[in-house]
Protein backbone atom coordinates (compact mmCIF):
# COMPACT_ATOMS: atom_id res chain seq x y z
CA UNK A 1 0.00 0.00 0.00
CA UNK A 2 2.86 2.35 0.74
CA UNK A 3 4.50 1.75 -2.63
CA UNK A 4 2.05 4.10 -4.35
CA UNK A 5 1.12 6.34 -1.45
CA UNK A 6 -0.47 9.07 -3.55
CA UNK A 7 -2.54 6.63 -5.62
CA UNK A 8 -3.61 4.82 -2.47
CA UNK A 9 -4.74 8.05 -0.81
CA UNK A 10 -6.64 9.12 -3.93
CA UNK A 11 -8.31 5.70 -4.07
CA UNK A 12 -9.36 5.86 -0.42
CA UNK A 13 -10.74 9.40 -0.75
CA UNK A 14 -12.54 8.66 -4.03
CA UNK A 15 -14.01 5.48 -2.60
CA UNK A 16 -15.05 7.46 0.49
CA UNK A 17 -16.89 10.06 -1.60
CA UNK A 18 -18.56 7.34 -3.64
CA UNK A 19 -19.69 5.41 -0.58
CA UNK A 20 -20.74 8.66 1.15
CA UNK A 21 -23.24 9.21 -1.68
CA UNK A 22 -24.64 5.76 -0.96
CA UNK A 23 -24.63 6.68 2.73
CA UNK A 24 -26.67 9.85 2.15
CA UNK A 25 -29.42 7.82 0.56
CA UNK A 26 -29.20 5.23 3.28
CA UNK A 27 -29.49 7.95 5.92
CA UNK A 28 -32.50 9.42 4.14
CA UNK A 29 -34.05 6.01 3.84
CA UNK A 30 -33.43 5.06 7.48
CA UNK A 31 -34.92 8.33 8.73
CA UNK A 32 -37.96 8.19 6.48
CA UNK A 33 -38.53 4.63 7.59
CA UNK A 34 -38.35 5.78 11.20
CA UNK A 35 -40.73 8.67 10.43
CA UNK A 36 -43.14 6.23 8.83
CA UNK A 37 -42.88 4.14 11.96
CA UNK A 38 -43.75 7.12 14.19
CA UNK A 39 -46.65 8.05 11.96
CA UNK A 40 -47.98 4.54 12.05
CA UNK A 41 -47.45 4.38 15.80
CA UNK A 42 -49.42 7.55 16.08
CA UNK A 43 -52.26 6.44 13.87
CA UNK A 44 -55.65 7.04 15.54
CA UNK A 45 -58.45 5.16 13.89
CA UNK A 46 -61.85 6.78 14.06
CA UNK A 47 -64.67 4.26 14.30
CA UNK A 48 -67.86 6.27 13.61
CA UNK A 49 -71.13 4.86 14.84
CA UNK A 50 -74.48 5.00 13.18
CA UNK A 51 -76.93 7.59 14.43
CA UNK A 52 -79.68 6.64 16.83
CA UNK A 53 -77.78 3.62 18.13
CA UNK A 54 -79.05 2.43 21.49
CA UNK A 55 -76.70 2.71 24.42
CA UNK A 56 -76.70 -1.10 24.67
CA UNK A 57 -75.50 -1.38 21.10
CA UNK A 58 -72.77 1.19 21.78
CA UNK A 59 -71.77 -0.80 24.85
CA UNK A 60 -71.73 -3.97 22.73
CA UNK A 61 -69.46 -2.39 20.17
CA UNK A 62 -67.22 -1.03 22.93
CA UNK A 63 -67.04 -4.49 24.49
CA UNK A 64 -66.21 -6.02 21.12
CA UNK A 65 -63.44 -3.48 20.52
CA UNK A 66 -62.01 -3.82 24.01
CA UNK A 67 -61.78 -7.59 23.66
CA UNK A 68 -59.98 -7.20 20.32
CA UNK A 69 -56.27 -7.98 20.86
CA UNK A 70 -55.30 -5.47 18.18
CA UNK A 71 -56.76 -2.61 20.20
CA UNK A 72 -54.36 -0.91 22.59
CA UNK A 73 -56.61 1.89 23.79
CA UNK A 74 -60.10 3.14 23.23
CA UNK A 75 -61.81 6.42 23.79
CA UNK A 76 -65.52 7.02 23.32
CA UNK A 77 -66.62 10.38 21.94
CA UNK A 78 -70.34 10.96 22.14
CA UNK A 79 -72.26 13.11 19.65
CA UNK A 80 -72.29 15.92 22.21
CA UNK A 81 -68.56 15.68 22.87
CA UNK A 82 -67.94 15.72 19.11
CA UNK A 83 -70.01 18.86 18.76
CA UNK A 84 -68.23 20.46 21.69
CA UNK A 85 -64.83 19.66 20.13
CA UNK A 86 -65.94 21.03 16.78
CA UNK A 87 -67.07 24.25 18.32
CA UNK A 88 -63.85 24.52 20.28
CA UNK A 89 -61.74 23.92 17.20
CA UNK A 90 -63.72 25.99 14.71
CA UNK A 91 -65.52 28.68 16.74
CA UNK A 92 -66.18 30.87 13.66
CA UNK A 93 -67.93 28.04 11.80
CA UNK A 94 -70.06 26.77 14.71
CA UNK A 95 -73.10 28.71 13.48
CA UNK A 96 -73.23 26.40 10.46
CA UNK A 97 -74.19 23.46 12.66
CA UNK A 98 -76.69 25.49 14.66
CA UNK A 99 -78.62 26.16 11.45
CA UNK A 100 -79.20 22.41 11.00
CA UNK A 101 -81.33 22.22 14.12
CA UNK A 102 -79.88 18.90 15.25
CA UNK A 103 -76.36 17.64 15.91
CA UNK A 104 -75.12 16.03 12.67
CA UNK A 105 -71.86 14.73 14.14
CA UNK A 106 -71.72 10.99 14.84
CA UNK A 107 -70.56 9.35 18.02
CA UNK A 108 -67.23 7.58 17.61
CA UNK A 109 -64.50 5.52 19.17
CA UNK A 110 -60.91 6.72 18.84
CA UNK A 111 -58.85 3.56 18.62
CA UNK A 112 -55.10 3.16 18.95
CA UNK A 113 -53.78 -0.19 17.78
CA UNK A 114 -51.15 -2.19 19.62
CA UNK A 115 -47.57 -2.06 18.19
CA UNK A 116 -47.78 -5.43 16.45
CA UNK A 117 -50.64 -4.06 14.33
CA UNK A 118 -48.85 -0.92 13.14
CA UNK A 119 -48.01 -2.05 9.65
CA UNK A 120 -50.05 -0.59 6.84
CA UNK A 121 -51.40 -4.00 5.92
CA UNK A 122 -52.48 -4.75 9.49
CA UNK A 123 -54.22 -1.39 9.80
CA UNK A 124 -56.05 -1.94 6.51
CA UNK A 125 -57.14 -5.45 7.48
CA UNK A 126 -58.31 -4.33 10.93
CA UNK A 127 -60.27 -1.37 9.51
CA UNK A 128 -61.92 -3.62 6.95
CA UNK A 129 -62.97 -6.06 9.68
CA UNK A 130 -64.42 -3.37 11.94
CA UNK A 131 -66.38 -1.86 9.04
CA UNK A 132 -68.42 -5.06 8.99
CA UNK A 133 -69.47 -4.68 12.66
CA UNK A 134 -73.15 -3.85 13.02
CA UNK A 135 -73.67 -0.27 14.12
CA UNK A 136 -70.38 0.97 12.66
CA UNK A 137 -70.98 3.47 9.87
CA UNK A 138 -67.45 4.34 8.89
CA UNK A 139 -63.85 3.59 9.82
CA UNK A 140 -61.47 6.41 9.05
CA UNK A 141 -57.78 7.04 9.46
CA UNK A 142 -55.15 9.06 7.63
CA UNK A 143 -54.66 6.34 5.03
CA UNK A 144 -53.72 8.72 2.24
CA UNK A 145 -50.87 10.01 4.28
CA UNK A 146 -49.58 6.57 5.14
CA UNK A 147 -50.02 5.38 1.55
CA UNK A 148 -48.15 8.42 0.22
CA UNK A 149 -45.33 7.93 2.69
CA UNK A 150 -45.09 4.24 1.87
CA UNK A 151 -44.81 5.13 -1.82
CA UNK A 152 -42.09 7.71 -1.14
CA UNK A 153 -40.18 5.20 0.99
CA UNK A 154 -40.50 2.56 -1.70
CA UNK A 155 -39.25 5.00 -4.35
CA UNK A 156 -36.32 6.02 -2.19
CA UNK A 157 -35.61 2.36 -1.57
CA UNK A 158 -35.47 1.71 -5.32
CA UNK A 159 -33.36 4.80 -6.01
CA UNK A 160 -31.04 3.90 -3.12
CA UNK A 161 -30.62 0.36 -4.44
CA UNK A 162 -30.03 1.62 -7.99
CA UNK A 163 -27.56 4.28 -6.93
CA UNK A 164 -25.98 1.88 -4.45
CA UNK A 165 -25.35 -0.71 -7.16
CA UNK A 166 -23.93 1.85 -9.61
CA UNK A 167 -21.73 3.54 -7.02
CA UNK A 168 -20.60 0.19 -5.61
CA UNK A 169 -19.52 -0.80 -9.12
CA UNK A 170 -17.68 2.54 -9.30
CA UNK A 171 -15.93 1.79 -5.99
CA UNK A 172 -14.93 -1.65 -7.26
CA UNK A 173 -13.51 -0.05 -10.42
CA UNK A 174 -11.58 2.59 -8.47
CA UNK A 175 -10.01 -0.02 -6.21
CA UNK A 176 -9.42 -2.39 -9.12
CA UNK A 177 -7.49 0.36 -10.93
CA UNK A 178 -5.41 1.13 -7.85
CA UNK A 179 -4.52 -2.51 -7.37
CA UNK A 180 -3.78 -2.79 -11.09
CA UNK A 181 -1.27 0.05 -10.77
CA UNK A 182 0.34 -1.71 -7.82
CA UNK A 183 0.44 -4.99 -9.73
CA UNK A 184 1.94 -3.21 -12.71
CA UNK A 185 4.57 -1.50 -10.54
CA UNK A 186 5.45 -4.87 -9.03
CA UNK A 187 5.20 -6.99 -12.17
CA UNK A 188 8.93 -7.85 -12.08
CA UNK A 189 8.72 -8.89 -8.45
CA UNK A 190 5.63 -10.99 -9.18
CA UNK A 191 7.34 -12.62 -12.17
CA UNK A 192 10.37 -13.47 -10.01
CA UNK A 193 8.17 -14.86 -7.24
CA UNK A 194 6.43 -17.08 -9.78
CA UNK A 195 9.72 -18.35 -11.14
CA UNK A 196 11.09 -19.27 -7.72
CA UNK A 197 8.05 -21.35 -6.79
CA UNK A 198 5.59 -18.99 -5.08
CA UNK A 199 2.06 -20.33 -5.19
CA UNK A 200 -0.75 -18.24 -6.67
CA UNK A 201 -2.27 -17.67 -3.25
CA UNK A 202 1.08 -16.52 -1.82
CA UNK A 203 1.26 -13.90 -4.59
CA UNK A 204 -2.42 -12.91 -4.59
CA UNK A 205 -3.33 -12.76 -0.90
CA UNK A 206 -1.40 -9.53 -0.13
CA UNK A 207 -3.17 -7.74 -3.01
CA UNK A 208 -6.58 -9.06 -1.99
CA UNK A 209 -5.93 -7.85 1.56
CA UNK A 210 -4.74 -4.51 0.23
CA UNK A 211 -7.97 -4.10 -1.72
CA UNK A 212 -10.04 -5.06 1.31
CA UNK A 213 -8.14 -2.59 3.52
CA UNK A 214 -8.55 0.17 0.90
CA UNK A 215 -12.28 -0.52 0.76
CA UNK A 216 -12.64 -0.59 4.55
CA UNK A 217 -10.66 2.65 4.96
CA UNK A 218 -12.69 4.32 2.20
CA UNK A 219 -15.89 3.18 3.85
CA UNK A 220 -14.77 4.36 7.31
CA UNK A 221 -13.79 7.73 5.86
CA UNK A 222 -17.18 7.99 4.13
CA UNK A 223 -18.86 7.46 7.52
CA UNK A 224 -16.75 10.23 9.05
CA UNK A 225 -17.77 12.54 6.19
CA UNK A 226 -21.39 11.51 6.56
CA UNK A 227 -21.37 12.10 10.32
CA UNK A 228 -19.85 15.54 9.74
CA UNK A 229 -22.53 16.42 7.17
CA UNK A 230 -25.22 15.05 9.48
CA UNK A 231 -24.07 17.20 12.41
CA UNK A 232 -23.80 20.22 10.13
CA UNK A 233 -27.36 19.64 8.89
CA UNK A 234 -28.72 19.35 12.44
CA UNK A 235 -26.90 22.48 13.44
CA UNK A 236 -28.38 24.34 10.47
CA UNK A 237 -31.86 23.11 11.41
CA UNK A 238 -31.39 24.36 14.95
CA UNK A 239 -30.02 27.66 13.71
CA UNK A 240 -33.04 28.38 11.52
CA UNK A 241 -35.29 27.82 14.56
CA UNK A 242 -38.12 26.48 12.42
CA UNK A 243 -37.75 22.83 13.15
CA UNK A 244 -37.28 22.90 16.90
CA UNK A 245 -37.30 19.36 18.23
CA UNK A 246 -37.15 17.80 14.78
CA UNK A 247 -33.35 17.90 14.77
CA UNK A 248 -33.39 15.47 17.70
CA UNK A 249 -35.58 13.04 15.81
CA UNK A 250 -33.20 12.74 12.87
CA UNK A 251 -30.99 9.77 13.62
CA UNK A 252 -27.56 8.80 12.32
CA UNK A 253 -26.90 5.28 11.08
CA UNK A 254 -26.83 2.76 13.90
CA UNK A 255 -23.46 1.20 14.91
CA UNK A 256 -24.47 -2.10 13.33
CA UNK A 257 -25.31 -0.37 10.02
CA UNK A 258 -21.98 1.50 10.21
CA UNK A 259 -20.16 -1.81 10.72
CA UNK A 260 -22.12 -3.33 7.86
CA UNK A 261 -21.06 -0.40 5.62
CA UNK A 262 -17.40 -0.92 6.56
CA UNK A 263 -17.81 -4.63 5.82
CA UNK A 264 -19.43 -3.70 2.50
CA UNK A 265 -16.46 -1.43 1.68
CA UNK A 266 -14.13 -4.28 2.56
CA UNK A 267 -16.07 -6.63 0.31
CA UNK A 268 -16.06 -4.14 -2.57
CA UNK A 269 -12.30 -3.64 -2.15
CA UNK A 270 -11.76 -7.38 -2.14
CA UNK A 271 -13.87 -7.69 -5.30
CA UNK A 272 -11.89 -4.86 -6.95
CA UNK A 273 -8.63 -6.64 -6.18
CA UNK A 274 -9.99 -9.89 -7.50
CA UNK A 275 -10.98 -8.23 -10.79
CA UNK A 276 -7.47 -6.78 -11.21
CA UNK A 277 -5.70 -9.98 -10.25
CA UNK A 278 -7.81 -11.97 -12.69
CA UNK A 279 -7.03 -9.56 -15.53
CA UNK A 280 -3.36 -9.40 -14.55
CA UNK A 281 -3.21 -13.20 -14.37
CA UNK A 282 -4.83 -13.56 -17.78
CA UNK A 283 -2.39 -11.07 -19.27
CA UNK A 284 0.55 -13.05 -17.88
CA UNK A 285 -0.77 -16.50 -18.70
Amino acid at each position, binding site marked *: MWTNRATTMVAIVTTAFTLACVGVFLLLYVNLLAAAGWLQDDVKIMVYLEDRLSSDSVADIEQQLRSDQAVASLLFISKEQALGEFKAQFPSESHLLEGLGQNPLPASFVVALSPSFHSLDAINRWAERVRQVAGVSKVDYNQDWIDALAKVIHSIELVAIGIGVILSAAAVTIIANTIRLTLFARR*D*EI*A*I*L*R*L*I*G*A*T*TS*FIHIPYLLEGAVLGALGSALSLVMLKFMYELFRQQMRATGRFVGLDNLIAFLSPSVCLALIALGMGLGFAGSLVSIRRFGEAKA
Partner: protein
Amino acid sequence: MALLEQAPKMIQLIHVSKRYDQRSALSDVSFEIGKGEFVLLMGPSGAGKSTLLRMLIGAEQPDEGQIFVHQKNVTTLRRSEIPYLRRKVGTVFQDFRLLPKKSVFDNVSLPLLVQGISSADIRRKVTEALRAVGVDHKRDQLPAGLSTGEQQRVCIARAIVNGPVVLLADEPTGNLDPALTSEIIELFKLINARGTTVVVATHDPLVMEQVNRRVLTLSQGTLLPERRVMG
Protein backbone atom coordinates in the same frame (compact mmCIF):
# COMPACT_ATOMS: atom_id res chain seq x y z
CA MET B 1 17.70 -43.14 -28.59
CA ALA B 2 19.30 -44.61 -25.50
CA LEU B 3 21.12 -41.88 -23.65
CA LEU B 4 22.72 -42.47 -20.31
CA GLU B 5 20.84 -45.61 -19.53
CA GLN B 6 23.04 -46.20 -16.50
CA ALA B 7 21.96 -42.99 -14.65
CA PRO B 8 18.42 -42.23 -13.36
CA LYS B 9 16.78 -39.69 -15.64
CA MET B 10 16.47 -36.19 -14.25
CA ILE B 11 15.24 -34.53 -17.45
CA GLN B 12 13.62 -36.21 -20.42
CA LEU B 13 12.22 -34.64 -23.58
CA ILE B 14 10.23 -36.84 -25.95
CA HIS B 15 9.54 -35.46 -29.46
CA VAL B 16 9.00 -31.93 -28.23
CA SER B 17 7.90 -29.26 -30.72
CA LYS B 18 6.91 -25.65 -30.22
CA ARG B 19 5.79 -23.00 -32.70
CA TYR B 20 5.27 -19.28 -32.31
CA ASP B 21 2.84 -18.20 -35.03
CA GLN B 22 4.46 -19.61 -38.16
CA ARG B 23 8.00 -19.82 -36.76
CA SER B 24 9.22 -23.11 -35.37
CA ALA B 25 11.03 -22.60 -32.04
CA LEU B 26 11.66 -26.30 -31.35
CA SER B 27 11.18 -29.15 -33.75
CA ASP B 28 10.93 -32.78 -32.62
CA VAL B 29 13.53 -32.47 -29.85
CA SER B 30 14.26 -35.59 -27.77
CA PHE B 31 17.00 -36.12 -25.20
CA GLU B 32 17.63 -37.30 -21.69
CA ILE B 33 19.78 -35.88 -18.92
CA GLY B 34 20.80 -38.12 -16.05
CA LYS B 35 20.96 -37.27 -12.37
CA GLY B 36 24.16 -35.40 -11.49
CA GLU B 37 25.09 -34.55 -15.09
CA PHE B 38 26.50 -31.21 -16.25
CA VAL B 39 25.16 -30.43 -19.71
CA LEU B 40 25.75 -27.47 -21.97
CA LEU B 41 22.91 -26.41 -24.21
CA MET B 42 24.62 -24.58 -27.05
CA GLY B 43 23.34 -22.68 -30.03
CA PRO B 44 23.11 -19.19 -31.43
CA SER B 45 20.50 -16.66 -30.29
CA GLY B 46 17.03 -17.74 -31.37
CA ALA B 47 18.01 -21.42 -31.57
CA GLY B 48 15.37 -22.32 -28.99
CA LYS B 49 17.56 -22.62 -25.85
CA SER B 50 15.53 -20.21 -23.70
CA THR B 51 12.25 -21.73 -24.88
CA LEU B 52 13.52 -25.14 -23.86
CA LEU B 53 14.59 -23.96 -20.40
CA ARG B 54 11.26 -22.18 -19.89
CA MET B 55 9.49 -25.43 -20.76
CA LEU B 56 11.50 -27.30 -18.13
CA ILE B 57 10.00 -25.08 -15.39
CA GLY B 58 6.49 -25.09 -16.84
CA ALA B 59 6.61 -21.45 -17.97
CA GLU B 60 5.77 -22.62 -21.50
CA GLN B 61 4.02 -25.68 -22.81
CA PRO B 62 5.08 -27.58 -25.92
CA ASP B 63 2.65 -27.94 -28.82
CA GLU B 64 3.67 -31.57 -29.14
CA GLY B 65 5.66 -34.06 -27.11
CA GLN B 66 6.26 -34.65 -23.45
CA ILE B 67 8.69 -33.30 -20.88
CA PHE B 68 9.68 -35.04 -17.65
CA VAL B 69 11.61 -33.33 -14.87
CA HIS B 70 12.47 -35.29 -11.72
CA GLN B 71 9.93 -37.92 -12.79
CA LYS B 72 7.13 -35.37 -13.13
CA ASN B 73 5.41 -34.93 -16.46
CA VAL B 74 5.61 -31.14 -16.83
CA THR B 75 3.24 -31.15 -19.80
CA THR B 76 0.39 -32.57 -17.74
CA LEU B 77 1.05 -30.70 -14.49
CA ARG B 78 -1.81 -28.60 -13.19
CA ARG B 79 -1.08 -24.90 -12.81
CA SER B 80 -1.29 -25.27 -9.06
CA GLU B 81 1.46 -27.95 -9.14
CA ILE B 82 3.96 -25.87 -11.10
CA PRO B 83 5.22 -23.85 -8.07
CA TYR B 84 6.19 -27.13 -6.37
CA LEU B 85 8.17 -28.20 -9.46
CA ARG B 86 9.95 -24.82 -9.48
CA ARG B 87 11.01 -25.32 -5.87
CA LYS B 88 13.04 -28.31 -7.02
CA VAL B 89 14.56 -26.51 -10.01
CA GLY B 90 16.84 -23.52 -9.40
CA THR B 91 17.05 -20.99 -12.22
CA VAL B 92 19.80 -18.50 -13.03
CA PHE B 93 18.99 -15.69 -15.44
CA GLN B 94 21.20 -13.66 -17.73
CA ASP B 95 19.65 -10.45 -16.42
CA PHE B 96 19.86 -11.72 -12.81
CA ARG B 97 16.27 -10.74 -11.97
CA LEU B 98 17.15 -9.46 -8.50
CA LEU B 99 14.74 -7.22 -6.61
CA PRO B 100 16.46 -3.81 -6.61
CA LYS B 101 14.95 -2.60 -3.32
CA LYS B 102 15.76 -5.73 -1.35
CA SER B 103 19.13 -6.53 0.20
CA VAL B 104 21.26 -9.43 -1.03
CA PHE B 105 20.11 -11.45 1.99
CA ASP B 106 16.42 -10.75 1.31
CA ASN B 107 16.80 -11.60 -2.38
CA VAL B 108 18.40 -14.94 -1.63
CA SER B 109 15.84 -15.73 1.08
CA LEU B 110 12.86 -15.32 -1.30
CA PRO B 111 12.61 -18.98 -2.44
CA LEU B 112 12.55 -20.06 1.21
CA LEU B 113 10.14 -17.34 2.22
CA VAL B 114 7.54 -18.46 -0.33
CA GLN B 115 7.66 -21.94 1.20
CA GLY B 116 6.97 -20.65 4.69
CA ILE B 117 10.30 -21.81 6.11
CA SER B 118 11.15 -20.55 9.62
CA SER B 119 13.32 -17.45 9.90
CA ALA B 120 16.04 -19.37 11.78
CA ASP B 121 16.29 -21.89 8.93
CA ILE B 122 16.19 -19.09 6.38
CA ARG B 123 19.11 -17.36 8.12
CA ARG B 124 21.13 -20.56 8.18
CA LYS B 125 20.42 -21.63 4.59
CA VAL B 126 20.91 -18.15 3.11
CA THR B 127 24.22 -17.80 4.91
CA GLU B 128 25.33 -21.18 3.55
CA ALA B 129 24.31 -20.25 0.01
CA LEU B 130 26.00 -16.84 0.18
CA ARG B 131 29.20 -18.45 1.50
CA ALA B 132 29.08 -21.08 -1.25
CA VAL B 133 29.11 -18.37 -3.94
CA GLY B 134 31.48 -16.08 -2.02
CA VAL B 135 29.31 -13.00 -1.43
CA ASP B 136 28.43 -13.46 2.24
CA HIS B 137 30.21 -10.21 3.09
CA LYS B 138 27.76 -8.31 0.84
CA ARG B 139 24.59 -9.70 2.46
CA ASP B 140 23.22 -6.31 3.59
CA GLN B 141 23.90 -4.42 0.36
CA LEU B 142 21.40 -3.66 -2.36
CA PRO B 143 22.00 -5.30 -5.76
CA ALA B 144 22.81 -1.93 -7.33
CA GLY B 145 25.87 -1.65 -5.06
CA LEU B 146 27.34 -4.90 -6.40
CA SER B 147 29.53 -5.61 -9.43
CA THR B 148 28.04 -7.57 -12.33
CA GLY B 149 29.87 -10.73 -11.26
CA GLU B 150 28.65 -10.35 -7.70
CA GLN B 151 25.06 -9.87 -8.88
CA GLN B 152 25.31 -13.09 -10.87
CA ARG B 153 26.68 -14.88 -7.78
CA VAL B 154 23.73 -13.61 -5.75
CA CYS B 155 21.42 -14.92 -8.47
CA ILE B 156 23.16 -18.32 -8.25
CA ALA B 157 22.88 -18.27 -4.45
CA ARG B 158 19.14 -17.67 -4.81
CA ALA B 159 18.89 -20.59 -7.25
CA ILE B 160 20.70 -23.06 -4.92
CA VAL B 161 19.45 -21.89 -1.52
CA ASN B 162 16.57 -24.36 -1.75
CA GLY B 163 18.87 -27.31 -2.43
CA PRO B 164 17.38 -27.93 -5.89
CA VAL B 165 17.83 -31.21 -7.75
CA VAL B 166 18.37 -29.35 -11.03
CA LEU B 167 20.03 -26.00 -11.71
CA LEU B 168 19.13 -24.29 -15.00
CA ALA B 169 21.17 -21.31 -16.18
CA ASP B 170 20.14 -19.22 -19.17
CA GLU B 171 23.15 -17.40 -20.64
CA PRO B 172 24.64 -16.93 -17.16
CA THR B 173 27.83 -15.40 -18.55
CA GLY B 174 26.19 -13.18 -21.16
CA ASN B 175 27.04 -10.02 -19.24
CA LEU B 176 30.40 -11.12 -17.87
CA ASP B 177 34.02 -10.68 -19.02
CA PRO B 178 36.20 -13.80 -19.60
CA ALA B 179 37.70 -13.79 -16.08
CA LEU B 180 34.27 -13.58 -14.44
CA THR B 181 32.95 -16.18 -16.87
CA SER B 182 35.59 -18.63 -15.63
CA GLU B 183 34.70 -17.92 -12.01
CA ILE B 184 31.00 -18.53 -12.63
CA ILE B 185 31.67 -21.75 -14.55
CA GLU B 186 33.86 -22.99 -11.70
CA LEU B 187 30.98 -22.24 -9.35
CA PHE B 188 28.62 -24.32 -11.48
CA LYS B 189 31.14 -27.17 -11.50
CA LEU B 190 31.30 -26.98 -7.72
CA ILE B 191 27.51 -27.08 -7.43
CA ASN B 192 27.43 -30.00 -9.85
CA ALA B 193 30.09 -31.82 -7.83
CA ARG B 194 27.70 -31.77 -4.87
CA GLY B 195 25.22 -33.82 -6.90
CA THR B 196 23.00 -31.19 -8.50
CA THR B 197 22.19 -31.70 -12.16
CA VAL B 198 23.31 -28.57 -14.03
CA VAL B 199 22.09 -27.39 -17.44
CA VAL B 200 23.73 -24.26 -18.83
CA ALA B 201 22.30 -22.68 -21.97
CA THR B 202 24.89 -20.53 -23.69
CA HIS B 203 26.14 -19.37 -27.05
CA ASP B 204 29.49 -18.42 -25.54
CA PRO B 205 32.34 -20.64 -26.93
CA LEU B 206 34.43 -19.64 -23.89
CA VAL B 207 32.04 -21.56 -21.67
CA MET B 208 32.27 -24.61 -23.90
CA GLU B 209 36.05 -24.49 -23.72
CA GLN B 210 35.98 -24.56 -19.96
CA VAL B 211 33.48 -27.35 -19.51
CA ASN B 212 34.51 -30.90 -20.23
CA ARG B 213 30.99 -32.17 -20.48
CA ARG B 214 28.09 -33.23 -22.66
CA VAL B 215 26.98 -30.65 -25.21
CA LEU B 216 23.51 -30.52 -26.71
CA THR B 217 23.41 -28.18 -29.67
CA LEU B 218 20.28 -26.55 -30.98
CA SER B 219 20.12 -24.95 -34.39
CA GLN B 220 16.91 -23.31 -35.55
CA GLY B 221 14.95 -25.39 -33.12
CA THR B 222 16.48 -28.71 -34.12
CA LEU B 223 18.81 -30.81 -31.99
CA LEU B 224 22.12 -31.52 -33.78
CA PRO B 225 24.07 -34.76 -33.24
CA GLU B 226 25.50 -34.84 -29.75
CA ARG B 227 29.14 -34.31 -28.89
CA ARG B 228 31.35 -34.25 -25.83
CA VAL B 229 33.89 -31.44 -25.36
CA MET B 230 37.18 -32.33 -23.83
CA GLY B 231 38.60 -29.39 -21.89
